[in-house]
């Protein structure tokens, strides 16, 4: 890729361009300031209703218990449960609480169950691992124009197993009535929040012979923690995407146009850049707007896939970029992907593993929102295997990448030492490559460092135990918009700066007139449109 804009741009123009990028970056961070945090929770205490005819309601899909059910009880009151058995109890949660209703901007909903279990005097301390059988049904309802609600309609039903880990503090002196400390269990995940109201009817059937809920102790309360995206965050997020999408598209067409103006076929790195742009454009495509009018439960899966493709492309780009700047003159096939099959296969394997894992978890959730791969031992092993495999290939990838970068730097230092003895054309050529490489290394390192630091920051921020009321700043949303904007700007910058330069065309605004160019190239050389650095090198030597 001889002669890119980056090398031919004057220092002044480069600094202007970089400050424009920095201003855009700042704007992205500031945009995060007005956005609320990405997601919020709402904790809902289940109302315990009594189902007088558990047998008949087992198969019925139109019988729903709401918060205003005819008979509700308090489980902490031992008298209330006399004569009832587990099949009579229905835990009812209406989502969202109170007179609110969900908006489609809130995108998705995660439900997590917390079961408060207490110790009974007559009881042994339970073994810590409790297998739960949860019969859960979801229904939905919508607002009617006159302010009412449509009747509850069946959405989904499943009987799933979950494991709950409960610890009892033995130090406690008066044990009776003291709660166990139990882990929460993930219950469901809805990929789209299409309707206004949702209703969960949860049963915990007891059956000794089929070993259903036999380990369960005395339950006093059941809470459902619901996590949903914040509408405000989605709005800010989608507008960020909507702004970036056309900008990126125009930069891409400009870039591709430039490449095609050359009298040669595009080189590998140019193909990589344009496909990186394509994956980012796919990620930026604001299809979230469609979810406002259509029910799209596959949105979660789709956004996972979109992000996955983008990251895979970015990783491959770095690898190939390092490879193409190796400064070793090899032979003609250096421009093909084949040379990198070993390195790229680590990315492919890793991504494929994650994709299969994601399809197993979120793909099945399209059919059954209560499904979780982590429940059965086989599923857990499978999921772990995929994740470990993905981890191994990620490790391998970084080994390859580090090795390549190390080799590039080694070559650079060798070439540097012999630079003064070279002819000017040759020297400029090598300096150009070194400069290009160092520039990308630097920006990539900065971007990666910012991403990692902000990720750690958000973890620290979320991980602190104390609840600070005065904390108004939404760090996590700033980090989300900031980092997202940063990678967008990074790729836009790559597309602009690594586009081939045509200094001889004075019409082009992005080309400097050459008063203070960083590397003044020999006119002959820039005019000749070589395919590879090798031929360009031979051309130069022949000029000399």
């Amino acid at each position, binding site marked *: 890729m001889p002669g890119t804009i980056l090398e031919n741009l004057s220092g002044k123009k480069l600094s202007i361009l970089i400050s424009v990028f920095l201003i855009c970056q700042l704007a992205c961070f500031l945009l995060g300031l007005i956005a*609320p*945090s*990405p*997601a*919020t*929770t*709402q*904790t*809902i*205490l289940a109302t315990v209703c009594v189902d007088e005819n558990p047998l008949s309601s087992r198969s019925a899909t139109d019988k729903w218990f709401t*918060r205003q059910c005819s008979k509700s009880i308090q489980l902490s009151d031992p008298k209330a*449960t*006399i004569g*009832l*058995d*587990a099949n009579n109890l229905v835990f009812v949660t209406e989502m969202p*609480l*109170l*007179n*609110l209703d969900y*908006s489609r901007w*809130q995108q998705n909903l*995660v439900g*997590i169950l*917390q079961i408060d279990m*207490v110790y009974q005097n*007559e*009881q042994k301390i339970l073994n810590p691992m409790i297998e739960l059988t949860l019969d859960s049904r979801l229904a939905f309802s919508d607002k009617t124009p006159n302010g009412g609600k449509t009747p509850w309609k069946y959405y989904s039903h499943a009987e799933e197993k979950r494991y709950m880990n409960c610890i009892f503090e033995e130090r*406690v*002196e*008066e044990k009776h009535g*003291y*709660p166990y400390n139990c882990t*929460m269990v993930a219950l469901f995940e809805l990929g789209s929040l299409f309707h206004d109201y949702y209703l969960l009817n949860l049963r*915990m059937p*007891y059956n*000794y012979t089929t070993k259903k809920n*036999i380990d369960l102790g*005395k*339950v006093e309360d059941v809470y459902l*923690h619901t*996590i949903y995206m*914040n*509408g*405000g965050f989605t*709005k800010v997020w989608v507008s960020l995407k909507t702004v970036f999408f056309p900008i990126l598209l125009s930069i891409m067409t400009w870039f591709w146009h430039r490449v095609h103006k050359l009298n040669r076929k595009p080189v590998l790195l140019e193909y990589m850049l344009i496909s990186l742009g394509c994956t980012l454009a796919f990620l930026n495509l604001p299809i979230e707007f469609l979810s406002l009018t259509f029910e799209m439960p596959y949105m979660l899966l789709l956004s*996972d896939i979109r*992000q*996955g493709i983008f990251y895979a492309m970015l990783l491959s780009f770095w690898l190939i970029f390092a490879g193409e700047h190796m400064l070793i003159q090899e032979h003609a096939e250096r421009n093909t992907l084949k040379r990198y099959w070993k390195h790229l296969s680590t990315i492919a394997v890793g991504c494929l593993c994650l994709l299969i*894992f*994601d399809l197993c*978890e979120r793909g099945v959730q399209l059919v059954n929102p209560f499904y979780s791969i982590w429940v059965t031992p086989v599923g857990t092993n499978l999921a772990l295997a995929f994740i470990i495999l993905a981890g191994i290939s990620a490790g391998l990838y970084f080994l390859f990448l580090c090795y390549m970068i190390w080799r590039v730097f080694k070559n650079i230092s060798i070439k540097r030492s012999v630079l003064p003895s070279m002819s000017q054309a040759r020297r400029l050529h090598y300096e150009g490559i070194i400069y290009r490489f160092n520039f990308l290394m630097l920006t990539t390192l900065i971007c990666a460092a910012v991403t990692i630091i902000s*990720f750690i920051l958000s*973890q620290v921020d*979320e*991980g602190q*135990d104390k*609840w600070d009321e*005065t904390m108004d700043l939404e760090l996590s949303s700033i980090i*989300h918009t900031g980092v997202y904007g940063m990678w967008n700007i990074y790729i836009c910058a790559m597309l602009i700066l690594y586009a081939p330069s045509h200094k001889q065309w004075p019409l082009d605004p992005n080309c400097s007139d050459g008063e203070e160019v960083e590397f003044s190239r020999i006119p002959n050389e820039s005019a000749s449109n070589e395919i590879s650095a090798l031929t360009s090198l031979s051309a130069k030597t022949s000029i000399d």
Partner: protein
Amino acid sequence: MAIDHCQSLFQWERWNCPKSTFNRQQRLISTKETAFSKAIIAAGIAHSITKNCSQGQIEGCKCQNTDKFPIDQQLKYKNHQEKIKTLSGDVRIKKEVTENVTKGVNNDKNVEWRWGGCSDNPMFASQITEKIIDSMETGIDVPAYISRHNAKVGIKIIQSSMRRKCRCHGISGSCTTQTCWIQVAPFEEISRKLKDLHRKSVRVTHSAVEKSIIIGNSASDVLVQVKEIPGTENRLIYMVRSPDYCVTNFTEGYLGTKGRMCSRNRSNVTKMEKNSCRNVCKKCGHTVKRMQKKVARRCNCKFSWCCEVKCDTCHEVVNEHFCI
């Protein structure tokens, strides 16, 4: 709820948390025990408001910013106040239908909720409780100060025992995005913590309290500024040493220990229970009378969810001890 917990905690002590302590109409002298009961009432109110909020029984538990306190919430909180005045002990806040909620306010809420969500229930409950306590104890005299302080300690216990729970839900469920919320600890835990505080409570003098209440005059109203007495932060405070709970004192509302039950169980009981006969009876100058009783007790129980405890019935003779 507060009474039940208090009574089960103090079952084997001389002061057994009589119901009269929880009667608001009565002005009690500031002992350790009244301090404790003030704190546990406040904690109980905050706890049940939280619970009712998350069951959707109270309006206005949501979209609560610390700086603004919407009008309809204030109206509601006045309603709670009425309830609390009429119900001296157990605070049960039932769903209240207030006509004052205009549709406009509700719509605003919905917009706000859609934008940024609101999940602050536990914090909201303790703020509300603090306001309720403030309005219940409006006096600027010393006992009012003490009871306000102790109630606030109760609320602080609730706040400090809140737990933070997080859940990751980023790409493929990874932790690139996680959301956290706070959760109130079970009341059992809170009441036990308060009992520890009861043991460690600090005695303050009348003058120290007076010093900490600074009264200033403004044009319209009497301004009262209250500052903390040094060393009493997060501690229960009292002024008067606990009276002798052995003897009956109707005016102060306790019945003495005569007729109380004590326990001589040796195995598998707390220290307090083990020494209960000595503490409750003998040291008060009562004698312990053993009464044998034949009881049918449940034994070899097997608990099966939800409501059934399958037990054998064992007939055994138990000794019950009473102070006479």
